[in-house]
């Protein structure tokens, strides 16, 4: 951290402190509004000085996010936000760096950077707005669009097998992996706060409705009548139970999550108890395997484990080198090797 950066004297922050003077330019009804408002509510709770927040995005509707946050912000280029975040955080571990990306930005053009930031466990928070469509470019299918989807670029239906962002994050052994949905403000609050408090890369998939090009993509999860059957809230230490009557649960059968129905008074013993802190990502992968429409979609924290962060390790190497070798002596460095004097 450069010496010149003065620490702010503490002051109680509120949502208002995080609202920038820029007009918000998403379509009326876009799910992005709720996400923005929720995050502006969460940040003051994290106890981090405002000037430490930096938001970095790629390109897409979602990626306009930084403009609306009264923090440091960087609206970078398509798919590359994780790389800027890695560079920034490596030098400035003192900052709270958030990456905002979309299903196209993060999983199509930017898939590789996402993979690598996750495996390195750079201490950044990644919010992936998954609307299963390219919004900004006006409606082509995305890597998360369902098979057979008809869009401007797939008038006869998409033939690309969709990616599941959670599976990809787990494949890279991300240390924090969660999913939430734009219509559930309370749930978003919890997940964002946990992400903000996690040390290491926190990956959050947000199911987000695009009213213009993919309206109702998450209808079942959002609709009052279906949501309890269509989704399952993950709660640490609790069995995997869902349903309006809380009469359905998940148990393991042959490596498969199996739905069982039961009398809510008599919860079966063999239901899986949610534990996101397992070092082993296989459990979380099992959860990720639960996909609509056949099974309820898990919402919440899939995985939350501790492993050293890239930025800490990098800076520790610097410290150690200085301690063991002494601070760099330029004179000596320039004169290293065979020298001679004329």
């Amino acid at each position, binding site marked *: 951290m*450069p010496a010149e950066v003065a620490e702010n004297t503490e002051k109680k922050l509120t949502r208002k402190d995080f609202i920038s003077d820029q007009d918000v330019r998403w379509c009326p009804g876009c799910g992005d509004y709720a996400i923005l408002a929720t995050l502006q509510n969460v940040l003051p709770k994290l106890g981090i000085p405002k*000037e430490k*927040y930096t938001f970095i995005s790629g390109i897409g509707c979602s990626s306009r996010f930084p403009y609306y946050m009264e923090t440091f912000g960087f609206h970078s280029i398509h798919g590359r936000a*994780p790389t800027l975040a890695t560079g*920034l955080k490596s030098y400035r571990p003192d900052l709270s760096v958030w990456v905002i990306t979309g299903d196209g930005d993060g999983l199509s053009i930017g898939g590789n950077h996402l993979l690598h930031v996750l495996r390195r466990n750079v201490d950044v928070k990644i919010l992936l707005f998954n609307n299963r469509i390219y919004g900004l470019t006006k409606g082509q299918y995305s890597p998360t669009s369902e098979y057979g989807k008809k869009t401007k670029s797939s008038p006869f239906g998409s033939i690309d097998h969709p990616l599941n962002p959670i599976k990809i994050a787990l494949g890279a052994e991300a240390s924090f992996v969660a999913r939430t949905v734009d219509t559930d403000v309370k749930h978003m609050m919890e997940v964002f706060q946990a992400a903000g408090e996690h040390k290491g890369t926190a990956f959050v998939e947000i199911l987000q409705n695009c009213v213009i090009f993919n309206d109702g993509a998450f209808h079942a999860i959002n609709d009052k009548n279906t949501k309890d059957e269509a989704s399952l809230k993950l709660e640490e230490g609790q069995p995997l139970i869902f349903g309006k009557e809380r009469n359905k649960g998940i148990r393991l059968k042959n490596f498969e999550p199996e739905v069982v129905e039961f009398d809510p008074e008599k919860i079966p013993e063999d239901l899986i108890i949610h534990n996101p802190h397992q070092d082993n990502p296989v459990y979380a992968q099992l959860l990720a395997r639960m996909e609509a429409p056949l099974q309820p979609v898990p919402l919440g924290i899939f995985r939350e484990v501790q492993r050293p962060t890239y930025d800490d390790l990098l800076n520790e190497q610097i410290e150690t080198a200085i301690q*063991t070798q002494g601070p760099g002596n330029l004179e000596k*460095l320039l004169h290293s*090797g065979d020298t001679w004097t*004329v």
Partner: protein
Amino acid sequence: MSKKSVEKLENVVIRFAGDSGDGMQLTGSQFTNTSAVLGNDISTLPDFPAEIRAPAGSLPGVSAFQLNFSSSDIRTPGDAPDVLVAMNPAALKVNLKDLPKGGIIIVNEDAFIDRNLERAGYDHNPLESDDLQEYRVFKVPISTLNQNALEEIDLPGKSKDRSKNFFALGMMYWMYDRSLEVTLHWIKKKFGKNPKVVEANIKALKAGFHYAETAEVISTHYKVEPSKLEKGTYRNIMGNQATALGFVAASHQAKTPLVYCSYPITPASDVLHELSRHKNFGVRTIQCEDEIAAMGATIGAAFGGSLALTGTSGPGLALKSEALNLALMVELPLVVLNVQRGGPSTGLPTKTEQSDLLQTLYGRNGDSPLPVLAPATPSECFQMSFEAIRLAVKYRTPILYLSDGYLANGSEPWRIPDLKDLPEIKIEYAKAPTGGKAFLPYERNPETLARPWAIPGTPGLEHRVGGLEKADKTGNVSYDPMNHQTMTNLRAEKVARMVQDIPDIQVNGDPSGQVLVVGWGSTYGAITSAVDRLRALGQSVSSIHLRHLNPFPKNLGEILKNFDQVLIPEMNMGQLSLILRAKYLIDAKPLNKVQGQPFKIQEIIEAIQSLLSKSQEVKHAS
């Protein structure tokens, strides 16, 4: 001392050549260091195959190292070797064509067995034919002599054989009257953990030396006196190393850490390797997943307030171009190093070329001017990388820094600068405006047009940047037509203003005359030597060398006008020519070479002479 004859020479060019496994790069660099410490001026040119280890004895597996050492000022590794050391038939075959008639050949006779001859594509043994009759050939059974010398050491025969390059080196040390000290010292340090290997290598070295002294094979013994270099402390340095040290020095002077983000690629990787060792200078190196990531991370690190850099070679620069344009748009200070190699596409990765100039200037969408610097010699890389950081910081702009394979791996003596002569680099981060004024992230320094460097973590400077066109001063997104014109003009003007910070060009030779040779980058040595030789013959020729390719030094146009003809030698098909022709409307004549090898002095001399004679003709005709 033996009673053999001693001859004094001004300079000697030796080429060591052998199989990739024969240790020729090592042999060459030992001879180089020894000669440097003896006070010769030196210049080197390694030439290694693209394969890690091509099949033993094959033509593509030949590795060579040429060095020129001298008692006077030299600037190139020599047009052609005086001596060729060939460790096997393939090495002889590949290199013979470069040796002038009458040159010395020292061969490892033992390697000229059927299998090797066949692999080298010989249908006969050249040592036993009259193929070599126009050369002075010394056939030495190096392998056998070496094995014999190491007889008593308890090592497998194969290991012993690995010392044979030291045997050869020993011979050369005797021939050119060098002391063994530097190499003895190096062997002990390098192989210290393995005393038997130390012993073997030392024995081999000494055996070679004594063999040459005693045996009747090599009859003459040469002396190359120390050169009269400027007073100071020297070391031998390769371009990539000098580049890395220049960055470290700049960081030191700026009291701000370096962050070097890179993806390995030949011939730039050594800069990453070198910098990754200097963690105690606060240097952070990030080996990224690809070049795009490296460019992105560099931008992020610059945004955070570090001295941020990335390094690559041509294909990597192509990949960076989109993200580099973002850096241009957000006007953050950073340096992009491009160590050029043979192109296009994967091209000739281990060979040198200067063919990325146009890519560097124009390889981005939109009107996107960026400053470009290029060092002229391996040791100058130090100053140039220092300068790149200084300018980037001062003007808040990405700077492109064009090195090439020849500079990167070539070496020469470098007068180590006095720390107190290094300029200071002043880092000024923006401070929060007082008196309730709004912070304007695109308000500019009236002199440099630099915008504030407002780093995250500074209360009151919260702001947003990005790749969409920015509104003047506020930096907000703007689709306003006139604003786009304004900002486009400002970006161009900022680069143009840098001219105030760039030294005027010095003409080598008379300030006017018949022919002016204009060069840039690593052609410096060959051009300057060619011009000096012709001037010594009384010809009307001068030269200038461009270290700043955008903007050009302000007296360039003036100088060009003072000559009848302009010749532009480049290791590409005429890229600087294009720019100079367009900018100054002069009918500059390109001299182009894309053969993976630097220019020879002679090639440039001939081109100048041909222009001189034309200019005579023109004069006579008019």
